[in-house]
């Protein structure tokens, strides 16, 4: 293995059909002139929602494209539903619902046209489910997509992804640019999809609040490197935020400190191993933190340890 490897095993990896993982990424490398996906490793457990987060340009979409075999990878391997992602068999592809950042459908088409087209593309297409979702989302059937709002287009993409008995949803910025009401509605649909324990979602977004609401696991990518890939609750329980005076920061063992943010009133310190820390330091009040804060401290904290 060349270079630095970012390995984040949620559990053991297996590439066969009965793997516990819907997606396994091993040592993925993709080099561009000005950007590199640097030895990416993570797994998406079956039956879970994995939030894939990172700032714009961190490598989320490139990783998604690599998973979907839309780009050629330089190194590594990606397994989806037990098969190599390169030249994935059609029957496996039919089990994946994909929602991309844009609608990617032609402006001249209407819902009825899309139903006719998808029927001929997906052997497992379910017209009844399609129209049920269309009605539920109040999507006009006769209007062409040119007259749809962005929210409506995204809903339609989600409806398509849900209308062919998909077991895995891959969503790239599916809620970006949508108003909170529509986002909430879409997140509810994803949670409904997860009622089946065989179903899995990989959901990339830079809107951390959406990830915090629905994800079981969070993978954080920063400048082409995976910073962490962990259970969301573990992340929140293991980290804590301390508000203290600037000179009190030196009292804390650096092994606990993830990042420090100073302001004119004092300092904010993000610590890890919260339980151990609280046993060792009872003079500091440790507040609950969020995924967003953890990410911000890691990427922008004045110090990193």
């Amino acid at each position: 293995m060349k270079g630095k490897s970012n390995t984040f095993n949620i559990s053991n990896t297996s590439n066969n059909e009965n793997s516990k993982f819907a997606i396994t990424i091993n040592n993925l490398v993709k080099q561009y002139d000005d950007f590199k996906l640097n030895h990416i490793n993570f797994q998406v457990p079956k039956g879970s929602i994995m939030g894939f987060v990172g700032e714009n340009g961190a490598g989320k979409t490139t990783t998604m494209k690599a998973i979907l075999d839309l780009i050629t990878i330089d190194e590594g391997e990606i397994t989806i539903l037990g098969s190599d992602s390169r030249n994935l068999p059609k029957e496996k592809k039919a089990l994946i619902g994909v929602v991309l950042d844009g609608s990617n459908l032609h402006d001249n088409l209407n819902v009825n046209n899309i139903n006719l087209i998808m029927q001929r593309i997906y052997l497992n297409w379910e017209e009844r489910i399609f129209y049920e979702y269309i009605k539920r989302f109040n999507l006009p059937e006769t209007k062409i997509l040119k007259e749809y709002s962005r929210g409506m287009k995204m809903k339609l993409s989600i409806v398509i992804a849900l209308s062919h008995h998909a077991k895995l949803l891959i969503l790239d910025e599916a809620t970006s640019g949508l108003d909170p009401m529509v986002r909430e509605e879409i997140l509810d649909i994803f949670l409904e999809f997860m009622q089946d324990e065989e179903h899995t979602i990989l959901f990339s977004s830079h809107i951390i609040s959406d990830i915090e609401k629905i994800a079981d696991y969070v993978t954080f990518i920063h400048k082409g490197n995976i910073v962490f890939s962990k259970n969301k609750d573990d992340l929140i329980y293991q980290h804590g935020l301390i508000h203290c005076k600037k000179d009190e920061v030196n009292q804390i063992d650096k092994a606990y400190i993830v990042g420090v943010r100073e302001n004119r009133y004092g300092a904010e310190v993000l610590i890890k191993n919260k339980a151990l820390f609280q046993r060792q330091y009872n003079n500091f009040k440790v507040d609950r933190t969020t995924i967003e804060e953890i990410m911000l401290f890691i990427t922008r904290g004045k110090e990193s340890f």
Partner: protein
Amino acid sequence: MLGLLLKDFINLKRYTKIFGLFIFIYGFMAYTQKDASSFTSIFALLFTILTMSSYAYDEVAKWDVYALTMPISREEIVRSKYYLMLLLVALSFAFSTVFTIVLNFILGIANIYLGLEACYIAASVIVLFYSITLPIITKLGIEKARIIFFAVYMIPVVIGYFIKKAANAGMIKIPTRLLEISKIAIQYRFIVIPIVLLIALWISYEIAIRIYQKKEF
């Protein structure tokens, strides 16, 4: 594959009214001029535009990225465009043929099949045109390819013009052997043209597939 073709035909459906208008205008002109050949060439040109339009629609929608996430292979996406082009050429050929025969009948021309060779040549030219251009579109996308088309088709025209001018002025002598081969090819055009087109299509398709397999989105 059927889904991809259906998607293209639904997108191109909006041209039906414009086509109807063109058929009426040029049909009327052909009737007044008592000659169907202008109609055949215009109709062939209109159908040529349709295949390019289907690429433009896909490009604007960024359809290919989405289609590749579906149970569709890269080969199928390329193949569907070749099928679309051939279907449109077949439609254009059938329409021009029927129109020519009907016009000849109305005009009371003794040889009712007069002018059908123009339909055959027009269809062959479109297939040859696309055999060259489809790999270029696959590589560059329709927007960039449009600029290249101009260069690709102007260069042979300009070279041909100067060769003809030079030959007429006696500056160069076209080899007799070449002229003989050309004469034989024209004589056996109904055998030679399909063979040439099949070879051109096969080479074109193989190149386009290879380009598309390596394409990144």
